[in-house]
């Protein structure tokens, strides 16, 4: 039986990045429906990432290659990553950001063109809770996506199938569903001439477009790219594939096919209304069932943002936050490939689980993280002297909010009281006597911090 408190925590962990115990306490008497409405209301107010100006603006851009050189910046990518991480940690519009993160994984793009990645991120955010058809059309003409999947090389005389393949395999129908290799070839022809101009904007070049007849999914016509997308959206399999992926991300890795099929039918009939689908999930009884609450291994970004929201975790240098994402296996704006992050159990292995479980101790002791991420491919050879001189990534944290929330809890009840605020899955395997041994009872403050630290060091804390 899932308690009301854990239901509310479940909602905020899945639709957002978790809330502090103080906030959860305030909401205990509200209905789920009321809280879901609140999440959608908060999603209306949001801001874009406006960190970067277009670096090509006002510059003499002679051709596409020059444009790429001007746009390319590793450092700006790290800054942009930090901007979004900070926004995830601070925003009230948590549902919109969580959906933006989902679409960032679904339409995984990785280029070193920081400004264009910012443009794409804002496009994802704009449509994050809108209509999937609009989102898909916007992504098909998104400059970063076009560059990433080589559509600027897709020309009438030499079609490049990369985008056409992925739009079906990963963005709409799912691998091997409905389409054939022939459909990929025909779709590639329809996207010929969709390119990026010297100002870094989408441009349709009619001379490079093949306007001949194509046969796609059994239909004939002089299709262009938009027609192909509309034909893909007309397939119910698209609604099913996207719904299934949303279910795996927001509900459970293990899919209840009946539930997904029903949701997909509604999603299709609603004209791909993402908000309606999400509202349906968050208000359903099954969403709050035993098997779904605390069933998901938090992604590294979910984990880090949860820490940020609970205890203000941050790093003294921006690079620290970037490196910890790298070592944990998820760096915003750097998905491993167009298929996105594998997720689920793939998030943890022997080294990442150990690092995750050691985070509280490192924050509390204040020693920082001795992490060394793998070098970038472009990096110069490792400098042995610099390696030896390397400092720890020092952390910042603030436990005062948590301390004040729990300062009146009696010493003998502290473990039992605190566990339900941080652990969502079954707590039967938690050895409370063991936790008791590691509590520093020298002051009220230290008692609370060391208890929470121990709870956060449990394998169970990795589950949301």
């Amino acid at each position, binding site marked *: 039986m899932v308690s009301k408190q854990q239901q509310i925590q479940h909602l905020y962990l899945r639709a957002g990045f978790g809330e502090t115990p103080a906030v959860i306490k305030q909401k205990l008497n509200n209905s789920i429906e009321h809280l879901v409405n609140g999440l959608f209301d908060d999603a209306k107010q949001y801001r874009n990432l406006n960190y970067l100006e277009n670096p090509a603006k006002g510059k003499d851009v002679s051709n596409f290659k020059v444009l790429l050189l001007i746009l390319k910046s590793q450092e700006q990518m790290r800054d942009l990553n930090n901007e979004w991480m900070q926004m995830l940690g601070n925003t009230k519009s948590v549902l919109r950001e969580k959906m933006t993160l989902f679409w960032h994984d679904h339409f995984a793009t990785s280029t070193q063109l920081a400004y264009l990645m910012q443009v794409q991120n804002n496009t994802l955010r704009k449509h994050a809770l809108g209509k999937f058809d609009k989102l898909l059309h916007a992504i098909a003409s998104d400059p970063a996506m076009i560059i990433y999947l080589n559509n600027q090389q897709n020309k009438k005389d030499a079609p490049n199938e990369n985008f056409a393949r992925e739009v079906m395999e990963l963005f709409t129908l799912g691998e091997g569903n409905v389409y054939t290799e022939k459909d990929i070839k025909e779709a590639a022809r329809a996207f010929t001439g969709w390119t990026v101009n010297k100002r870094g904007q989408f441009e349709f070049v009619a001379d490079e477009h093949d306007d001949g007849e194509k046969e796609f999914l059994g239909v004939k016509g002089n299709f262009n790219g938009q027609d192909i997308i509309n034909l893909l959206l007309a397939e119910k399999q698209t609604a099913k594939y996207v719904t299934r992926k949303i279910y795996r991300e927001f509900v459970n890795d293990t899919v209840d096919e009946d539930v997904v099929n029903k949701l997909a039918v509604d999603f299709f009939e609603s004209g791909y209304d993402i908000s309606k689908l999400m509202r349906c999930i968050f208000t359903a009884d099954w969403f709050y069932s035993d098997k779904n609450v605390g069933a998901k291994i938090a992604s590294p970004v979910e984990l880090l943002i949860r820490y940020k929201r609970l205890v203000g975790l941050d790093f003294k240098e921006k690079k620290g936050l970037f490196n910890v994402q790298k070592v944990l296996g998820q760096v915003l704006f750097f998905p491993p490939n167009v298929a996105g992050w594998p997720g689920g159990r793939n998030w943890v*292995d*022997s080294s990442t689980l*150990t690092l995750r479980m050691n985070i509280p101790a490192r924050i509390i002791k204040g020693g920082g993280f001795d992490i060394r991420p*793998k070098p970038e491919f*472009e990096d110069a050879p490792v400098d042995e002297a610099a390696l030896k001189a390397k400092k720890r990534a020092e952390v910042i944290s603030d436990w005062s909010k948590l301390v004040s929330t729990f300062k009146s809890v009696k010493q003998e009840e502290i473990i039992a009281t605190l566990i339900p605020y941080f652990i969502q899955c079954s707590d039967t395997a938690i050895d409370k006597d063991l936790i008791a041994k590691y509590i520093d009872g020298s002051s009220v403050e230290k008692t609370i911090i060391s208890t929470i630290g121990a709870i956060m060091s449990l394998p169970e804390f990795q589950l949301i």
Partner: protein
Amino acid sequence: MKNSRRDFIKYSGLASASLFMPKFLKATANYLPNDIRPKVLVVIQFSGGNDGLNCIVPYEDDIYRKGRPSIGYKKEELIKLGDGIGMNSSMQGLADLFFDGNVVLVNGVGYPNPNRSHFRSMDIWQTGSDENAYLQSGWIGRILDSTCNNAQCAQPHFAVELDDSLSLALKGTQMSGFAVRDPNQLKNVNQNPFIDSIAKQQQQFEDVHHNVAYLHKLLTDTAQSTDYIYEQSQKYASTTVYPANEFGNQLKTIAQLIIAETNTSVYYVSLSGFDTHAAQRNQQERQLKVYADGLKAFCTDLKSKGKFNDTMIMTFSEFGRRVEENASNGTDHGTANNVYLISGGLKQGGMINDMTDLSKLQDGDLIHQVDFRSVYTTVMNKWLNVDATAVLNKSFPMLDCL
């Protein structure tokens, strides 16, 4: 003409008959080695795209000479391997092993429709996927998966990466390998008695398919592997002199673990700094020397303890580089490349196939002769005694060198 073609053939017996007519793709189905001594594979990854053409150099080839007026090597700068073929002299250590018959050079290893992005091409090499497919597990990870029987799998230290974090290559679907930068630090890093206590709790979980049970089991396995690798690393202190750099230390660690007869079948280590778009010669030579000097010490160490015949070292990079140098005395991303297989237990050392034909390029890049998964298949079937077809989900012809 003394000491040219004839010597080359002697050193590369494999290629002798087939120098101009490769017949190396001789498939031997269901091969099972008679010898069941535990064998070890050490994978060395060159990150950044190593320029293979300046490692094994066709110095008499006009296309090479014209394409590389500034950074190309001349005959007198190279260690001669044979007619018109020389090895970069920074790799004296590799050359010594080659002349001892302990190296197989495979030329032109790659895959169709090569991708010139570091990330994507490394992804393809590490997962062993087709060039247009996206796999979420690595090829070594899937070897680990193949040990699983009803949620009971090998322990993570079956495959060890010398680093703080695991590469995709060592991540499987059901289990992954073990990452450790320096075993001496294992005791310090895990100085978290609370976590250690949880890991050592004897708990029975009814449903190992649930994530709570899964995380507890992973934690317990990790703690066991941590203790085991630490203990193994203390058993033997190598007296061989290794180069005083990180790569040398990593190889020394691996040698000590192998000599201590650690129950690890695959070791994985990376050397970066090969993305030589500018001023290539200095940078690449420096890295090749780090590699070859470390390698030489490693093999000497293993040989002195009778372990070299049971250890295979495979060196690869995510791609080679363009034939033509660029305007910055460097080279840009290319395609097919050499793979080196090094062991005391080779059937025969030498160059297994022709140098890639520079007169037949595609968009200025080498066309691959050997699918990289043929190399993996050979190593899995004939060295590790693993069913490569199950791991790669496809069968590839094997190289005739083990």
